[in-house]
């Protein structure tokens, strides 16, 4: 059985958006042969993550939530992954939509047979406060959602990590060009500046030839 693990806590604005964005990945995933393990809200805790990693050994692990350079966080900012249990991610493809986690932790985890994709600085995105109760309808956040989700979608389509990473960078660029060309949108400048930031801070560490 081929498993994909997704963690998606939901306890503040940022995690609520990431939670919603992940639903799109789950929709796509359910059309594939992969089996989903969805650790959402309070289930996004260290004990559950460690258990799944040990018992199911998922090929792809997608973390959503907060983070710092040395940890990936889950529900209510509980530490899911740090130096003490990072060995559980060996041989896997890890995508961490979590601030700073590629800076130190990602470097430690990545290796010849392990891939870590994540952000080496804060992951920034913009939200429309009039749509924050329905993130899936937020057009201001859409460029960030589509760009971020592209990595998982490309991997699930069977592309290599390198190809998926390039697809994601391209998606960011497509949205940047879209807003650069659109004269009527007052939010264009703010969106472009954040997209450029995220695109530049997304890094691919470790094995680049792996695929699902």
């Amino acid at each position, binding site marked *: 059985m081929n498993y994909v693990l997704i963690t998606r806590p939901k306890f503040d*604005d940022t995690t609520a958006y990431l939670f919603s964005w992940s639903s799109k990945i789950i929709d796509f995933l359910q059309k594939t042969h992969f089996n989903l393990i969805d650790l959402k809200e309070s289930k996004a805790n260290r004990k559950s993550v460690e258990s799944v990693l040990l018992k199911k050994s998922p090929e792809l692990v997608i973390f959503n939530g907060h983070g*710092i350079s040395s940890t990936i966080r889950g529900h209510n900012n509980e530490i899911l992954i740090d130096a003490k249990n990072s060995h559980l991610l060996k041989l896997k493809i890890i995508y961490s939509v979590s601030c700073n986690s590629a800076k130190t932790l990602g470097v430690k985890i990545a290796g010849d047979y392990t891939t870590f994709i994540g952000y080496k600085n804060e992951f*920034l995105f913009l939200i*429309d406060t009039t749509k924050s109760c329905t993130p899936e309808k937020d057009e201001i956040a859409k460029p960030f959602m589509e760009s971020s989700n592209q990595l998982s979608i490309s991997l699930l389509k069977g592309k290599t990590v390198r190809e998926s990473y390039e697809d994601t960078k391209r998606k960011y660029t497509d949205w940047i060009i879209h807003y650069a060309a659109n004269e009527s949108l007052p939010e264009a400048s703010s969106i472009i*500046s954040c997209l*450029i930031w995220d695109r530049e801070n997304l890094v691919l560490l470790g094995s680049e030839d792996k695929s699902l």
Partner: protein
Amino acid sequence: MTLNSSNKFFEENEGRFVKVYSNIPINLRREIILVIDDNPITWNVAYVEIKNKTELGENIKKINRIRIYIVMVDEEIKELVITRLKTMPANIKMSVGSYGTFSKNELIESVKKENEVGKLVIEMQLKYLKSFKKGII
């Protein structure tokens, strides 16, 4: 505002400015890139003033910062970033990871205080402005 007259970037590199300007998407030429005596200056304004050799154009030419933004002093950078943030629509908030989500006014306050979020916003804005020069848009 103090102008550094010894650093006459535009006088020596007007062609370079035109080259950078030419490569900027037309919509983004309305971006604020300078603040002189509380007056925001866009790429378009800088280009027109320099080309027409106006007094403002002469002042802009004396400023090295469009070189781009490498030598601005801290207060000038803050002033520019705040002016740019003021153009952000009021209904938009920025998610800054575990720091939370911030409105336009909260971001401006953070920049003024130079706290962690403020420093991050300054860095992000400067990266954006430098991207024009690098052509990575």
